[in-house]
Structure formats: structure tokens, C-alpha cells
């Protein structure tokens, strides 16, 4: 018999057709050409003007489509992020997807007491360590806006904590050109210099413009710094439907894309060929509470749409979110919202997916939530990998063996099952599938409890390969106030 070789279809979500894609893109270009943007960075403004942008009497900078096209064609199609030991762990290209935590939560759910409290530097350390120990978390963000760090250097301190507690890639925040330079110094310390960092970057900067269409000076300082040093950066704005942007998703996307394109144009003019991760954040402003929702279907839908636009038009790797919730505690709502965004982000092949583990619309971080998401990502990955069809998986021989075998033949006893079950099935670690009695005997615990125990176990048992004393000393020096 000839072996059956069949290519595997991997489920892929599409939400826009070509006409919709072009209409949104053209609207973004029209915003840039007709309305223009407020560029509050004199250097960036000068760069745009020299490149042919016109400035209105009121200071609105109008950007021609030609500049956008140039920037789109000069930005690299692939961004490779490395871990801190120099392994290429995150090739951001095509349909590759990677998950990680989020930044700057004001509060944290204390893993010991379950209480929501102000987050600290120790929390940034704990989250980094947890990420280091979870197989489906690919990169770390701070998850903490610590109350106990000096505010002028808050991002330098959280960066140092992350570096000390994980060797995975880091997506970091900075305030201005001043502190980003310090963070850059630390990153150089870790890998042994500027050249090594440029060759194998383990950091990516997250910065935000202000919707609608405002580009503050300190934000552009960071963008220019990254463009010059070739540090990968993304620059989404808060073009949330009903908040910074129109309430209708098409308009909010057009605005957010326009804002991203402005960042890209300046970035490529300053550092042609420097890596730029594309993608606005288009969630919704809740019409009752005015929070920006982290559990809504709209955000998942707009980033699925952006993935379609990447495939059809932009070709650049994209930024996304998942695994977060508006719920205040890790309850059923948190599970439902986290799973919805995790599986749709994966099915639409967003590339760098952050914010995993947030509760309370991004204001509170939870170690348990990250731990749960780690399992939900595994579950989604199983689904997204599709069904492998070949001679082995069709298992006709096993079927014949069992059906026609001696009385008492069962698949569970067959070699085929023994050889394949680890790959053929999704084997949950935290989701409960015990029979009722055993579940009751083991304490009737829910998923939150399982995740709490697992998070604590990882924090106490997981060993992060430590940085050398030399590197640690260097970091301490950079942290000293001058």
C-alpha cells in the first residue's frame, strides 16, 4: 500500500475581504493627506518637512501617500528577537505567533493573600520569573508600575528587575530619551555591548502616540532613539473606538493605522531599514464605565482585521493583545474573555501578542491569570495545529487489529495508542477533568486555586539562569542616581 501524504490545513481566521482592506487603508492615507497630524517633536517635524510634508497655519503636518509607501517598503518584513543567551526564539514573520505579559499595572493580586494591592518592584521580578518558567510565555513585560521605585527612573528599575529574573526577550517601556538610554545601557551590559545587541536584539520598545493624531515630544524621542540604535519598536496609539477614535470600528482602525504609519514614516526617515512592529490598539471605550475594555470582542476583531491587512498589504509583523480581562478577580468572566482573545489572536496569526495576565481592564496583574493563560495558549495551539492526516494517524491497521482481534481487544491496550497518545491528544495540566469523587477528595478546588498553587510552585522551584556578577555590578552602577 502506498503511504498517504496529505498536507495539513492549519485553521486560519479571516475577517476582511480585499475591498474592505483597501477602503480602510485608503481612509488612513486620506487622514494623513487631508487632516494631517500634530507633531510636537521639532526634530521629527523638520525631518517630515524636508521629506516633502506640508505644514498648515495651525501646525497640522500633511503627509503624502508616497512617503507612506516608501516607509512600508523600506521597513524589514521580519524582526528577529533573541533570548538573552543569543538564541533566536522569536522570529516575527509571516504567521508566527508569540505570547507575553503586559506592562505597567498599577495593582497586583497578591499571590499569598489574594488581595489587590499597589504593585512593587518585587512583583516585576516575580512576573518575569514566572514567564521564564512557563513554556508558552515567550517574552516578558513588567506587569508592574511599582510604588517603591523612584518615579523618574521607574522604567529603568523595572527593566533591571526583569533582566535579573528572566532570560527570555523583554518588551519594555520608557518615558523619554533620557531613561531609554539607561535601559539601553543595561541591555548592552547583558549581551556584551552595542554591536552584540544590534546583531541579536532581545529588547523591543513599546511606545504610544496619543489619539487622535498627536505625537508628543518624549514619545518621538524614544522612536528616534530606537530608529538610530536599530532597537525594534512598536508605536500603537490608543485609537480606541469611542475614546481616542470614532465609535465605529472601521474609522477607529483607519485612524489607528494612520497614526502607526506616521510613526513608521518618521522611523524609516531617521533609520531606514530599522525594525518597526506594526499595529494600532483598537479596543473600545466602554459606554457606561468609560474604561478601555480588555475583554471585548471588538479588540480581537480589529486585530484579526489588521492581520488580514498585513497579509494583503503591509507585509510587516504585527503587534496584538490577548489573555486579559475586565473582570476584577479571576472568575468565569476572566476565563471566557482570556480564551476568546487568545484563540482568535492565534487563529488570525498576530505575531507579538502581549497583555497576557491582566485583570481589571489592564489595571491589575495576576500571576494566576498568566498561569491559566499558559494552559489556554497550549489548548489554542493544539486547535490551530489542525489535524495531521497520514498513514499513521489514519490508523487503518489499528482499526483492523482491534475490530477483528481477540475478544477483549481495546484501543487503550494497542501499541498504536501507546505510541501516539502524547501527540494525538491535548493533555491539560491545570484544567480539571477528574471524576467527581476524586475532585471532591482532592479538595474541590477550582481553576483559580490550581493556578495559584502552580504559580507559587514555579516561583519557589524554577531556577532562572543567573546573570554574571560582572553584569549585575554593571546594572547596579547604571541604577545609581547621578
Amino acid at each position, binding site marked *: 500500500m502506498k503511504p498517504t501524504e496529505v498536507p495539513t490545513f492549519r485553521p486560519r481566521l479571516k475577517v476582511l475581504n480585499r475591498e474592505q482592506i483597501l477602503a480602510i487603508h485608503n481612509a488612513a492615507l486620506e487622514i494623513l493627506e487631508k487632516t494631517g497630524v500634530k507633531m*510636537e517633536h521639532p526634530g521629527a517635524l523638520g525631518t517630515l518637512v524636508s521629506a516633502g510634508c506640508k505644514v498648515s497655519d495651525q501646525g497640522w503636518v500633511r503627509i503624502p501617500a508616497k512617503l507612506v509607501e516608501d516607509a512600508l517598503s523600506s521597513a524589514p518584513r521580519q524582526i528577529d528577537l533573541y533570548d538573552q543567551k543569543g538564541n533566536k526564539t522569536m522570529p516575527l514573520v509571516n504567521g508566527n505567533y508569540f505570547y507575553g505579559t503586559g506592562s*505597567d499595572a*498599577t495593582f497586583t493580586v497578591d499571590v499569598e493573600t489574594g488581595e489587590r494591592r*499597589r504593585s512593587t518592584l518585587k512583583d516585576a521580578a516575580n512576573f518575569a520569573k514566572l514567564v521564564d518558567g512557563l513554556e508558552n510565555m515567550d517574552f516578558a513585560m513588567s506587569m508592574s*508600575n511599582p510604588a517603591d521605585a523612584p*518615579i*523618574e527612573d*521607574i522604567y529603568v528599575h523595572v527593566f533591571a528587575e526583569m533582566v535579573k529574573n528572566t532570560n527570555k526577550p523583554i518588551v519594555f517601556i520608557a*518615558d523619554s530619551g533620557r531613561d531609554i538610554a539607561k535601559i539601553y545601557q543595561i541591555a548592552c551590559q547583558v549581551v556584551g555591548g552595542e554591536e552584540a545587541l544590534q546583531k541579536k536584539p532581545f529588547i523591543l520598545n513599546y511606545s504610544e502616540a*496619543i489619539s487622535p493624531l*498627536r505625537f*508628543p515630544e*518624549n514619545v518621538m524621542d524614544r522612536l528616534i532613539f530606537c530608529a538610530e540604535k536599530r532597537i525594534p519598536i512598536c508605536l500603537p496609539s490608543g485609537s480606541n473606538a*469611542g*475614546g*481616542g477614535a470614532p465609535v465605529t470600528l472601521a474609522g477607529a482602525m483607519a485612524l489607528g493605522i494612520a497614526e502607526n504609519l506616521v510613526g513608521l514614516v518618521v522611523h524609516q526617515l531617521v533609520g531606514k531599514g530599522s525594525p518597526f512592529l506594526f499595529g494600532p490598539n483598537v479596543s473600545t*471605550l466602554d*459606554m*457606561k*464605565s*468609560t474604561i478601555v475594555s480588555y475583554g471585548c470582542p471588538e479588540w480581537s476583531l480589529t486585530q484579526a482585521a489588521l492581520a488580514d491587512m498585513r497579509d494583503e498589504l503591509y507585509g510587516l509583523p504585527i503587534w496584538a493583545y490577548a489573555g486579559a480581562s475586565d473582570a476584577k478577580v479571576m472568575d468565569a468572566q476572566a476565563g471566557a474573555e482570556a480564551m476568546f482573545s487568545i484563540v482568535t489572536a492565534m487563529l488570525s496569526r498576530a505575531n507579538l501578542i502581549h497583555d497576557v495576565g491582566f485583570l481589571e481592564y489592564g*489595571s491589575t496583574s495576576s500571576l494566576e491569570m498568566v498561569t491559566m493563560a499558559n494552559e489556554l495558549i497550549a489548548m489554542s495551539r493544539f486547535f490551530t495545529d489542525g489535524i495531521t492526516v497520514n498513514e499513521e494517524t489514519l490508523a487503518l491497521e489499528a482499526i483492523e487489529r482491534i475490530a477483528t482481534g481477540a475478544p477483549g481487544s481495546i484501543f487503550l491496550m494497542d501499541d498504536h495508542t501507546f505510541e501516539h497518545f502524547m501527540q494525538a491528544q491535548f493533555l491539560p495540566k491545570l484544567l480539571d477533568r477528574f471524576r467527581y469523587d476524586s475532585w471532591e477528595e482532592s479538595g474541590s478546588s477550582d481553576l483559580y486555586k490550581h493556578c495559584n498553587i502552580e504559580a507559587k510552585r514555579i516561583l519557589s522551584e524554577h531556577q532562572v539562569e543567573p546573570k554574571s556578577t560582572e553584569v549585575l555590578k554593571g546594572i547596579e552602577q547604571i541604577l545609581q542616581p547621578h
Partner: protein
Amino acid sequence: MSDFKALSEAVNKGDTKTALVEAQKALDAGSSAEEILNKGLITAMNEVGDKFSKGLLFVPQMLRSAKTMQECTKLLQPFFQEGDVLSKGKVLIGTVKGDLHDIGKNLVSMMLEGAGFTITDMGVDVSPEKFVEKTREVKPDIIALSALLSTTMPAMAQTIEALQKAGLRDKAKVMIGGAPVTEKYAQQINADSYASDAGSAVNKAKALLGIS
């Protein structure tokens, strides 16, 4: 004497056109502008505020009502008499230095105005010096400071210090708000009050001035 039922209904619905007609009718029927404002418009807006805080209204509906009230107040403007009690209090509001975010601040302004406060909005990126200067000029009952970024929160403390130095700190109450702001931070920097959102900003402002 009127119960302003139709006017109140129009404000509740955010139906500006009908509200203006009803306000004019009330004036024509002999009601005073002050009475129309206080018994008609502000009472209606209190109802709107109540419904909003109970989750029965969405923000755009509430803002439409506030806008309706503003338009009616404009209509009444020429008819106010000296000595009329027209405002719950004066609020000076702005986003602090270094911060350019204004959605939250604008929302708080609209809500306070709807509740009967008089607003002076200084916009975004307002330095402590500018707050001091404007406080001297406007003599507000409340100074409201907004910040979205944790890195601009210290500018709230600096603004309060500047008011202190200028001898103005005890002339007005200071309330603060914004995503990274907490009750504890308000206490730390010697603010009088903290509000977590626009709806509670109104209640906090009223509480600060001891009015209902």
C-alpha cells in the same frame, strides 16, 4: 409657576430642540431664569446623573443631556438677575504638566458642568505656575488635576506645592484623578479628594463643598 415637566423630560432625553422651546415657554409664562435653571435644568440633570450611576444610561446619552442643559443655560443667560444663585461652585480643571491626555479631563468637565458647576478648563500640559496664576484670577472653589501617566503624577504634587508656596492652597479644595492615581496617592500629596471616574468626580466635588 411650573413644574418644568416637559423641560425636564427633554433634558433627560437630550432633546435640545424641544428643551429650548420649553425653556422659552417657561420664560414667556413668567418663570424666572434662576428658577428654570435650578428647578428645571439642574434637577433634570441630577436625575440623569442618578440614572447614569445606576447603569441605566450610557455616556453619550448622558453627555447629550448635559449639552442640552448647556444650550438652555445660554438661552437663559440674558435673563439672570444680580444675586441669582447660578453655580454650585467654580472649578478650575486641567491635565498637569508633561501630560497631553484629555479625554478623562473633558468628561469630568462636562459632568461637573451638567451638575451645575462653573468650569474653567485650562487644557493639557498645564504647568504649576499656570495653575497658580489662574487660581489667583478665577478664585475657584475646587482645583481639579488630571494625569494619565505614572510619570506625570509627580506634577500633581508639584502643582499642590506651588499653590502652597503662593499661599493659595487653603483658598480652594484640590481633587485629583486619572488612571494611575489612587486614594492613597491623593493623601500622600496632600490633595483633598480623589475620584476614580467622572461620575464620582461630581459626588466628590459636591462633598468637598458640602452641597447635595
